């Protein structure tokens, strides 16, 4: 590992923690309906939206109404996107004359973008019109992210309110989350990206004559910056171009790389503080952030080590994967070495691994290197991150509410062990909450295992593999881990645009999203109706290091116990083979 690489990672972590507090506090104000400075600019738009759609933003909803509004809205959005994909050939802003999508492909994309997954079974520059990219995908990047944050806001209200039948208003949360959080941040970020050289144009693709003659080269262009800003911030991850953020038009400079990878985690990290702020006990938010951070840094270190160590088989052939110090021994100019297959030389090991870990920790899924080419252990880390249920930061909103489901299980176990009916933030955790939390944790795991089992038995699914054997299993396992947990990251090798993956994966994405979201809202509704138990000496503190450790243990053990056998047949055996021969 190079000094430069580690330094960059440390700066990254410091920036992430530093931003959590101000951004988190600001988001708390957004969802609490407190006055905001930005209301001067966006207030009229907010009121106009309410007036045009006939919404009373102050009308409180019970959790069932809230869930119904959320589902209907998402369903409508998904239908619009599906139609857009099927009819893009006849619609404007299509300079490359892209044709209609196949129905199964269109279904998969519609499910993918409305669930904040952004699994991409297509190549953007080769199949989508500018209109589809902007009015379809970019709009969903905003709305699916705002939906996730709205559900979290409802859950936090559930934790905070006492003897209350309602959890807030979905439209209020959706509009404010979009207008006051995602839109301003994306606007600023898009302008920054343009300054770095990310393209933003409606012009058709450029054609360049090559020096050696022959066919002129087509250079794909498009309104990329506006989409990339939100794809990073909203943990969407669906790249404008197929190469995603490895593409120089999506991620041109070291600075753009730093801010893009920062944008992946910043809202999810800050939402921890939003929770602390809204429930009136900042320590609770910091404890959750600490738990996420510890798992993140731990797995990042393993991934970094694995990639830096490289492949001993190659080393035996004389390709030295070790970091080499330049002549004169200045550590700043060390040649990184390590496993560079599938990585951009301009990013190197540290920035590629940091991105890979962050993008799978959060359910982002954008890439700046190809995970399929990682060493087996290095590739296991992103896969495990998703299999943990996307709760280490996770998607905006969805990551934290997923983590809170684990918190419920943890306080249940911890509560039993101190001899009290479990409670979290003064709310008693009963059978109903346990049922819903179990459902939320169970469903994605079952989807991953079931999808993989079907995949290894299906001829078409097997034909989509880029590699045979254990690595082929890893590819299929990775695909379903990604889709069922709404990540969207792809293990490059797999050709997933097949009816099998499109339909099964589309279902996995929908179930994985809403079968977690609905139980979460049910918990919000149930908790809001309860009284708050005052803290006493017999209360188990949920902000101390002990609880953080226990939470981490529960997340890791549930994840490990569920996926260890499958991982053993995939990346683990690959790694052992690579090392042992």
């Amino acid at each position: 590992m190079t000094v430069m690489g580690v330094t960059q990672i440390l700066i990254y972590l410091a920036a992430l923690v530093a931003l959590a507090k101000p951004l988190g506090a600001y988001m708390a104000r957004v969802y609490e309906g407190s006055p905001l400075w930005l209301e001067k600019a966006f207030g009229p738009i907010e009121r106009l939206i309410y007036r045009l759609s006939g919404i009373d933003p102050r009308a409180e909803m019970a959790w069932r109404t809230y869930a119904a509004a959320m589902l209907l809205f998402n369903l409508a959005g998904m239908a619009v996107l599906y139609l857009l994909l099927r009819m893009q050939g006849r619609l404007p802003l299509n300079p490359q004359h892209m044709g209609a999508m196949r129905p199964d492909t269109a279904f998969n994309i519609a499910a993918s973008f409305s669930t904040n997954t952004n699994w991409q079974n297509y190549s953007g520059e080769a199949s989508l019109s500018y209109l589809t990219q902007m009015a379809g995908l970019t709009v969903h990047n905003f709305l699916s992210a705002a939906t996730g944050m709205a559900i979290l806001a409802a859950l936090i209200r559930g934790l905070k309110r006492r003897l209350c039948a309602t959890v807030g208003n979905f439209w209020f949360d959706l509009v404010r989350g979009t207008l006051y959080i995602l839109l301003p941040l994306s606007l600023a970020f898009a302008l920054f990206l343009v300054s770095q050289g990310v393209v933003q144009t409606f012009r058709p693709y450029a054609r360049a004559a090559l020096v050696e003659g022959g066919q002129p080269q087509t250079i794909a262009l498009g309104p990329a910056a506006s989409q990339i800003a939100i794809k990073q911030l909203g943990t969407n991850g669906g790249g404008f171009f197929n190469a995603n953020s490895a593409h120089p038009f999506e991620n041109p400079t070291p600075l753009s790389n730093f801010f893009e990878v920062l944008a992946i985690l910043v809202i999810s990290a800050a939402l921890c503080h939003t929770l602390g702020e809204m429930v009136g006990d900042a320590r609770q938010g910091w404890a959750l952030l600490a738990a996420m951070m510890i798992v993140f840094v731990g797995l990042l270190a393993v991934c970094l080590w694995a990639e830096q160590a490289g492949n001993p088989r190659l080393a035996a052939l004389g390709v030295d994967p070790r970091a080499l110090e330049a002549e004169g021994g200045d550590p700043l100019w060390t040649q990184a070495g390590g496993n560079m297959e599938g990585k951009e030389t301009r990013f190197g090991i540290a920035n590629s691994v940091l991105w890979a870990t962050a993008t799978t920790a959060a359910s982002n899924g954008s890439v700046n290197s190809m995970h399929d080419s990682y060493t087996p252990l290095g590739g296991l880390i992103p896969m495990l991150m998703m299999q943990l249920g996307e709760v280490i930061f996770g998607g905006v909103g969805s990551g934290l509410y997923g983590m809170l489901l684990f918190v419920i299980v943890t306080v249940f176990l911890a509560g039993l062990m101190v001899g009290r009916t479990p409670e979290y933030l003064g709310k008693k955790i009963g059978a109903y909450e346990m049922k819903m939390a179990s459902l939320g944790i169970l469903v994605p795991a079952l989807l991953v295992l079931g999808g993989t089992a079907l995949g290894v038995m299906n001829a078409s699914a097997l034909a989509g593999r880029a590699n045979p054997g254990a690595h082929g299993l890893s590819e299929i396992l990775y695909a379903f881990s990604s889709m069922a947990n709404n990540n969207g990251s792809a293990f490059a090798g797999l050709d997933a645009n097949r009816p099998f993956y499109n339909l099964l994966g589309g279902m996995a994405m929908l179930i994985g999203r809403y079968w977690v979201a609905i139980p979460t809202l049910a918990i919000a509704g149930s908790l809001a109706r309860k009284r708050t138990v005052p803290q006493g000496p017999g209360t188990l503190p949920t902000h101390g290091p002990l609880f953080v450790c226990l939470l981490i243990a529960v997340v890791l053990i549930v994840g490990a116990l569920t996926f260890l056998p499958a991982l053993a047949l995939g990346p683990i055996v690959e790694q052992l083979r690579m090392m042992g021969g």
Partner: protein
Amino acid sequence: MNGKITRPSLLDPRFLMAGMKESVKRLRPRDQVGNPVMFTVWVGSLLTTALFVQALFGHGEAPAGFIFAVAAWLWFTVLFANYATAAAEGRGKAQARALRAARQSIKARRLKEPRRDATAEEVDAEALRKGDIVLIEAGQAIPADGEIIEGIAYVDESAVTGESAPVIRESGGDRGGVTGGTRVLSDWIVVRVTVDPGESFLDRMIGLVEGARRQKTPNEIALSILLAALTIIFLAVCATLLPMSIYSVREAGAGKVATLTALVALFVCLAPTTIGGLLAAIGIAGMDRLLQANVLATSGRAVEAAGDVDTLLLDKTGTITLGNRQATEFIPAPGVDEKELADAAHLSSLADETPEGRSIVVLAKERFGLRGRDIQPLGARFLPFTAQTRMSGVDLGARTIRKGAADAIGAFVGAQGGRFPAEARVVVETIAKDGGTPLVVADGARVLGVIRLKDVLKGGIAERFAELRRMGIKTVMITGDNPLTAAAIAAEAGVDDFLAEATPEKKLELIRQCQTEGRLVAMTCDGTNYAPALAQADVAVAINDGAQAAKEAGNMVDLDSNPTKLVEIVRIGKQLLITRGALTTFSVANDVAKYFAIIPAVFASTYPQLGALNVMRLATPQSAILSAVIFNALIIIALIPLAIKGVRYRAVSAARLLRDNVLLYGVGGLIAPFLGIKLIDVLLTALRLA
């Protein structure tokens, strides 16, 4: 406790036999479906047995001997879990038998009218209904729970309380409740039956310890859901391993597909069988422990709630202090001789049968040798204490001697043109501030002085409150005293708070207010006037000596009539939860080692490199699988004593308790199976069994 009920030892051979018989009987599917974890193990046992039969006919997926061994140990897993429940129930049943014996073949004399001399008929105790009137005379057993409406008697309650000294039961007041199965020793009583057959306290308790009528408590249901979720996950893990194994074998072109036997074995090892098998036993044993502490509970829910109690309301009299206040000092008013005061106080109290009155007579005798005097010839007329006058006294010819509360006496002397001396008022306030009760004595318009009445604290009470505080429970004393007096006693006893000048309404209001704040309130008391408050409290412990109304309103009855018994009840409630939590943690932590045993065993033939995961260096794939299954079964047996006795609870902070239990059961649960499985593997290999 005097060991009136012999609780069978877990190692008693007869008890063991009975338990084993019961375990086999419970292999019926309908006894298994209630517990999803053990039901899946039961299905797995059936499946492996079928595979064994198939292997016997030569079509087996593995050697018949190996499948037989796995199937046998899976059946043992189910049997051991059955045995745990049977053992816990067995102990409860032994107790229930003893309780029931007390009630067998009792005849009752039912009266037509609620009078002793009404016409009577002989009926079976079982035939009595709520509202029936029965007559019980010396030497007869009381046929059912009820309330005395006429008469007074000495009752031997040892059958339910284990206390050999007989107690007085009489109509009216707080000592009117009688329990079925106890025996009248002297005199007679007429009792109105308050319960229908099968609904008495004893019946309900017997139901709870026998387990037959035991309903799952809320917390148990929540835990069952978690366990069911884990079971489903592991079922999916093992089921999807089959296609993945087929794929791997095909791709690698080596090795054999994982056998169903191995996958079932893996599933049973992963499923939370340790806690799943012991869950019922823990609950039953908790009720049994409560009975051992001489507390009858009517619902498991209340016991569980006891662990959560954070506010405890205690009646002062009889709970914190010894019964009644005692006179300790005569303080004369200026210009009055102490003996004159004592004499007047003595006279006014001669006919006063209240404990306070009697203590004044005793004090006067001790201090000045005043003896009982026959004052009838003097034309004495006694005025008993009433709530309206708030004083008592005696009229002796022209003398009108009164004693009572300061303001009542002040009004009395004022009406006769007298004056309340300022010095006496100071004394009154001082006494009140010290936690005593001042009783002012006046003779006509003249105030003679003040008698100091004092509460005497029960021994060791302060230590009990300190323990409650460490458990995180706030104690509130309830008393009819004025705030000053109450504050002094509260400080002396070490309670956290007090409610003075309490009326039934105020008590009820206090409980409701605590509950609105989200607190869980426990209350312990004896009097009838507490019944509404008891009914409102979350955990309500009535005293066995107390009124029937109180017993009916409470959800527990303390047979020892020891009001600080709540400490014990809270401890048992917490123990119940901790035992469940500890065993769940242990069970899940165990899985890590089992993966390291079974995964290399199942897949090493396909991918020899996975042998690196065999960190325990288990001899062969078969011995590895068998060792894990055997460990999984034996750990249930090994933990039965812990499940039945409960994990130790100490009154320390929640964080410390959690840390200790996580270290012991979490980290311990991670390490123990590595050692255990290795040891079994070494034994199996040495004995050439696998």
